């Protein structure tokens, strides 16, 4: 496996007025991988991406793309990257084809190059049928595909995708995932942000979990889950006011690694379930605390997220969706 470094981020920081949006980020992205920035709304994902694509200047630290500085060599960086913004950055009045023609001129492609590449891209994202309709008639999924075609137009070495599937229906999401995998298979390095755990888990080769502008964990989804150690026992408690008492009782039992309190129960990470489970049940019995539901599973990415940030990424998901 090639481990050449595509992006080198060191001690990156960005402050807006008084808000510290990104704080001392350091990570590397390797060529040919799908690298994900996973974090809740407002974590600083878009800010990080905007610095990498040279649209924002960092207030501290630096980012190098193929050895080129994002500030000093901004112009050359822009020639090697493609970008798909978080907003549907689409001109309603232009057709799909006109979007690509405009970008072809902005990337200084010759008309011959443009006339071979554009039909190819339209075919790739399955928009040929709709290429000559104004974008205002497109569905959300179609707009997203056009976005991606626009990002691919310069034939980039690195493609940046900001929340590529935000708000899309399940089918469109799966389609976009396929496209992203396809790009990786063709040798493009992909850097994307997401606040969907399953997307990070199933699509990304490596992820950085970021929260409040800082990296909390970094690695492949499998590494992160294994690194957590132990399995997870989830308890749903009938009387919510008993949760704290139960947590206190469980905490000091043998074979227990960590206890996370949720509003309606506990997530308990255990070393060996055959020792821990009877002890937990006995503790609940002793407190006459009624358990409505018991779930036992190998660590999932949401367990990883909770373990590293102290909260669930889903807490603010509804807010995210209606944006």
């Amino acid at each position, binding site marked *: 496996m090639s481990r050449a470094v595509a992006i080198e981020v060191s001690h990156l920081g960005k402050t807006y007025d008084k808000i510290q949006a990104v704080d001392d980020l350091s990570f590397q992205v390797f060529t040919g991988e799908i690298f994900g920035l996973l974090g809740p709304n407002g974590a600083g994902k878009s800010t990080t991406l905007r610095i990498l694509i040279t649209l924002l200047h960092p207030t501290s630290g630096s980012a190098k793309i193929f050895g080129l500085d994002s500030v000093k060599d901004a*112009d050359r960086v822009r020639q090697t990257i493609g970008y798909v913004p978080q907003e549907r950055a689409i001109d309603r009045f232009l057709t799909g084809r006109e979007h690509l023609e405009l970008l072809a001129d902005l990337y200084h492609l010759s008309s011959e190059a443009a006339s071979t590449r554009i039909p190819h891209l339209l075919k790739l994202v399955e928009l040929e049928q709709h290429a000559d309709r104004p974008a205002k008639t497109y569905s959300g999924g179609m707009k997203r595909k056009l976005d991606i075609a626009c990002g691919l137009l310069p034939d980039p070495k690195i493609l940046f995708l900001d929340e590529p599937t935000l708000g899309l229906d399940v089918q469109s999401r799966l389609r976009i995932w396929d496209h992203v995998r396809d790009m990786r298979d063709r040798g493009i390095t992909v850097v994307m942000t997401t606040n969907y755990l399953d997307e990070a888990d199933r699509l990304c080769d490596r992820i950085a979990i970021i929260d409040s502008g800082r990296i909390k964990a970094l690695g492949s989804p499998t590494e992160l889950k294994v690194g957590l150690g132990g399995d997870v026992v989830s308890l749903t408690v009938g009387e919510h006011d008993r949760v704290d008492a139960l947590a206190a009782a469980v905490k000091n039992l043998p074979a227990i690694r960590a206890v996370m309190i949720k509003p309606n129960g506990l997530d308990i990470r255990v070393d060996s379930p055959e020792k821990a489970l009877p002890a937990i049940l006995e503790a609940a019995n002793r407190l006459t605390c009624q358990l409505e539901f018991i779930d036992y599973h190998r660590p999932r990415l949401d367990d990883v997220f909770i373990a590293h940030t102290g909260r669930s990424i889903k807490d603010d998901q509804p807010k995210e969706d209606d944006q």
Partner: protein
Amino acid sequence: MTSRRKTINNEYWDPTEIFMKEYWQEIRALTMRWIRRLSREKFSMLFTLVQPMLFWLIFFGNLFQRAADMQVTQASSYISFLTAGVVVMTVLNNGLAGGVDLLFDKENGFLERLMSTPIHRSSVILSRFIFVMTLTSMQVLVILAVAWLFGVQPVTGLLGVATILFIGMLFGVGLTAISMAMAFSVKSHGDFFSVLGFLSLPMIFLSSALVPLSAMPGWMGFLAQFNPMTWAIDAVRPLILQGWTEALPHVGMVIVVMVMFDALCLYGGARAFRRAIG
């Protein structure tokens, strides 16, 4: 020498030639986009082109024909007096609205997409200037044509019309720069349109567009002197009504005033742009 040259399609190109070729490719593509957007909005295009002359020139001009005192306006008809005002008002409205499309581009992220491409940072702005200036010039020509139907013929002829277009452009550049600066600085488009509405009508009423300064209440006439619009109108009007000898001193003055006005607006615009885009 050859080491400084790059090859494109196996031909050798001078770096300056490449620069100019790429710059032109960007500006042409971006300008085409503005034109396409306008032409897709058929109704909007119609109203943009027709509204100023319909509303101001035809209605206002004929409505005030009897009410306006020819001794005061020093013109054979109120329409002939008003034509210069409508021409400059069109420049004003187009200029102040010149940043609107960029405002929407900023809000929906399209600007970010444009800026992530390896274009010269100034191309977006320049394309906008070219588009607004061309559109404005066409409208001015239409207004002069409609005025002509009502018997208003610029006495200085075609050269006079060219001079009018030139003055319009000088004024329009500064206004468009203000508008774009605002588009880049405002937090929401609500703010933008409030400021626009707040600026545009007083600019018209506190100028010599509708009545000469001499006929205004003292304080209004005083304020109107500082309005660059007044200077533009005072140069355009004699080009239509009186002739070169009367017009030339005003034309000279307005060029000086507008160069200063433009320098100020472009400086502010460039700062706002740099703050927003980096």
